[in-house]
């Protein structure tokens, strides 16, 4: 957020504000005066933004907290006590996301550990638009509010949740690779409001399919299903509002021994600026890891581009909308590769290696095994074992070329830890799940 008031050279140069535009607010006996302009920063839907100029209103709230809230609206500097202000924000109907500082990738620090009760390990993470964080452990989902000060836990019928996606503020989609159907869980009531099932042969009454990945676009919810016998897979597109199935894409069935044909997608990512769905899946076979990455046009149901990964297959892959590119970590080399979405190539040669490319290939070592890659805003984050590295772009003067540069994250004390299995982003935060841990690790950019 930019500084909202233009710095003045002195008080004397301030234009005097006509008394008619002043809004007076009596908060439990204490008088506050401000302007409609300041109050408008609280967002269109808020009670404060609706107060007319020249009016005097009364609110039965804590004046000290209101003072902090007003100071925040005036200066846009994040308040020192966000968790105290959250009830005030709810009362005045202000978006809690407003309170979070801007995401600054270079000032991300490991700042908070959120413990999970019980004995189940953290298995999946999701962030919601409002800044809250959802963590699945076993069949339970614990939701932390946007200030990470409060939590709530609900129980689902799933044994171990391994796909989690926030659909709206209160609704979460959860899936498991050993249990059928996507479950839509309503957090406030703690109930499964709907299940979304798919079966490859509906007429044969075959058992419903298990869930390999969940993704979403502004209009649709995508689920990658695989039949329990692993003979058929498909991505089903649901309407995000009604959850009615819209279409089925990427249907694959195995006939005979052609295993590669039916690798289900284990990662679904929507590429907003291209209106395409990236679906990627890999399979460890006798000839090593092979996989494929496809870009789907959801409307036509056809694949726009696809690549079969045979040499240095991806350990993980992600699109980055801001950089119009797809990034992957090679499972053998461990290097980060990039492919421009505007000029897609074919095969291994189409990938451009971001590192020095000196890492030996085919020495039998799997440098990139278990690596995760995610993009957020202009950065690409790669986990290697217990560490995270961030790739940021530097534009050079003159030729105007951009170079991607690697940054290590954290200080010496942050190094190490169990292997990272998932990284999700939201607001000013990176949320990390590590293998066999009972807590959620939060990295925040602090100012």
């Amino acid at each position, binding site marked *: 957020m930019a*500084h909202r*008031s233009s*710095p*003045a*050279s*002195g*008080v*004397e*140069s*301030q234009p*005097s*504000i006509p*008394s008619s535009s*002043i809004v*007076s*607010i009596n908060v439990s006996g204490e*008088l*506050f*005066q*401000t*302007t409609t*302009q*300041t109050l408008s920063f609280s967002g269109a839907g808020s009670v404060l933004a609706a107060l007319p100029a020249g009016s005097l209103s009364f609110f039965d709230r804590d004046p000290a907290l209101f*003072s902090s809230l*007003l*100071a925040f609206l*005036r*200066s846009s*500097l994040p308040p*020192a006590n966000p968790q105290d202000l959250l009830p005030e924000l709810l009362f005045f109907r202000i978006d809690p996301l407003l309170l979070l500082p801007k995401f*600054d990738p*270079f*000032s*991300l*620090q490991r700042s908070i550990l959120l413990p999970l009760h019980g004995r189940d390990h953290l298995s999946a993470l999701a962030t919601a638009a409002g800044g809250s964080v959802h963590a699945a452990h076993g069949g339970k989902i614990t939701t932390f509010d946007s200030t990470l000060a409060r939590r709530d836990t609900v129980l689902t019928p799933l044994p171990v949740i391994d796909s989690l996606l926030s659909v709206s503020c209160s609704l979460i989609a959860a899936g498991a690779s050993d249990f059928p159907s996507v479950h839509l869980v309503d957090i406030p009531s703690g109930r499964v409001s709907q299940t979304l099932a798919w079966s490859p042969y509906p007429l044969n009454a075959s058992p419903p399919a298990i869930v390999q990945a969940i993704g979403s676009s502004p209009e649709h919810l995508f689920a990658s299903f695989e039949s329990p016998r692993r003979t058929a897979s498909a991505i089903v597109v649901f309407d995000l509002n009604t959850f009615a199935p819209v279409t089925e894409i990427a249907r694959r069935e195995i006939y005979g021994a052609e295993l590669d044909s039916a690798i289900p997608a284990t990662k679904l990512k929507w590429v907003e600026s291209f209106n395409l769905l990236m679906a990627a899946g890999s399979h460890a076979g006798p000839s090593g890891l092979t996989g494929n990455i496809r870009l789907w046009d959801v409307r036509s149901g056809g694949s726009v581009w696809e690549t079969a990964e045979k040499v240095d297959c991806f350990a993980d892959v992600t699109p980055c909308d801001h950089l119009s590119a797809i990034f992957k970590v090679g499972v053998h080399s461990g290097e980060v590769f990039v492919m421009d979405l505007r000029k897609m190539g074919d095969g291994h040669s189409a990938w451009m290696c971001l590192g020095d490319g000196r890492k030996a290939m085919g020495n039998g070592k799997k440098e990139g095994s278990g690596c995760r890659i995610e993009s957020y805003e202009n950065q690409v984050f790669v986990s290697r074992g217990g560490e995270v590295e961030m790739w*940021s772009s*530097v*534009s*050079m*003067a*003159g030729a105007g070329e951009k*170079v991607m*540069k*690697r*940054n*290590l*994250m*954290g*200080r*010496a004390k942050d190094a190490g830890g169990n292997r990272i299995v998932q990284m999700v982003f939201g607001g000013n935060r990176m949320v990390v799940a590590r293998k066999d841990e009972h807590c959620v690790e939060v990295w925040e*950019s*602090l*100012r």
Partner: protein
Amino acid sequence: MVQEMDSRVKFNVGGKLFETTSATIGTASGDAAVQHHEPLFIDRDPELFSLLLSTLRSDRLPSTATRFPKRALVEEAIYYGVAPRLRSAMAPPPFLGINATLATTILPASHALPTAIAPGSHDGSLWIAHGGQISSYDWSLTHSSTIRTHLDDITSLRRLSPVVAAVGSVDSPGLHFYEISSGSHHGSTHWSDPSDLRVYKAWVTAIASDVDTTNPIFAVFEAPHRENCIMAVDRATLQVVAQFGRLSGSSSKMAPARRLTHLPDRGLVFASAVSSGAFGYSGYMRLWDARSGAMVWETCEPGGSGGRRFGDSFADADVDVEEGAIYKVCWKSGDVAMADMRKLGDDPWAYLEDPGVRNLAGGEGSFLHCFKEQVFVGKAEGLEVWSQLDGQFRRNYVDAKEDAIRGTITRMEGGGNRLFLSREGMEGVEVWESSDFSGAIAAC
């Protein structure tokens, strides 16, 4: 004191009334904007206003200000246009090595081992290069930005202007210019020599730049074949305007300078290089005429000047720009010597002696820095300061024994009224300040 009625000024800040005088807020009493019978309404936070008003009245920030983050105070002072007053109220007193404490340690968020530092010469702000990034901290040492450069290891960092950094790395060719707030790359300067094909992809080993002048900046370039020279680069065009001091790099006396200082009043550039080997330290100091490119003076150790202290060559040297003196610390004895720049000759060194303190160890791995007419020497045993008393130098320790344990000082720079230093293998930059607070500790 009763003050005249017409010099009084009334404010309504966010619903709270304030009354002060035009003298306090520093406006002419006849100013129309504040001469209202009605209080002037300002839509800002009343508590912050009250703190700033108090600062304007007494030039002291009330202790209740700690309730607010420094950043909120600074932004508010910028809004009211009183940032210089707040700065003078919050700034540390004049820096004295004999009365300095570790005020804080600045830790960048990631990759926190500093590889170069550049303080602001007047305001005590700081830029830290770490892991290819540059983090900037303002005069209140609040983090203002972190940018990523294309370099992976920045080994030289200087201020070209308050917003532009000149950076160089011994791993990557060229001298580069980055805007510190936006991170945009302004351009690069390279050393090229059409007559010598060996000169290509030359990297920078040291930069000298004085902010707020139109003087060129100077940088030492070294080519892969060890040829090196000093280049003068124009501040505005970023073009090379002169090159001098070309050396072959074949021996330690021909090596590229690792320390470069511009003395604008004398028109000289001070360059020095030191290397340590099996037979001790060897190196040189040279003074170059910045305009003609001619060498004015040089001393090479060991050998060269010979003199009284043969075999005790210098481990580090720095030039005191204001005083016009060169200081060195000897590697074997740990002694500090001074050379007056007005009478440099074969052996201009006057060894500083303090009968009170004896050298415990030698000067191996020392770092010497001249700041505010004091000489700071970081040694393995601690940080010592040489201060002048009636023309005599007296030596004292700045730090306690516990401080020295944190590691050998690898770099030290003064700026504003602060001394910034980094230590071997230690994350972050230590900020040392003089303070008038007693630091009283509750005993019960």
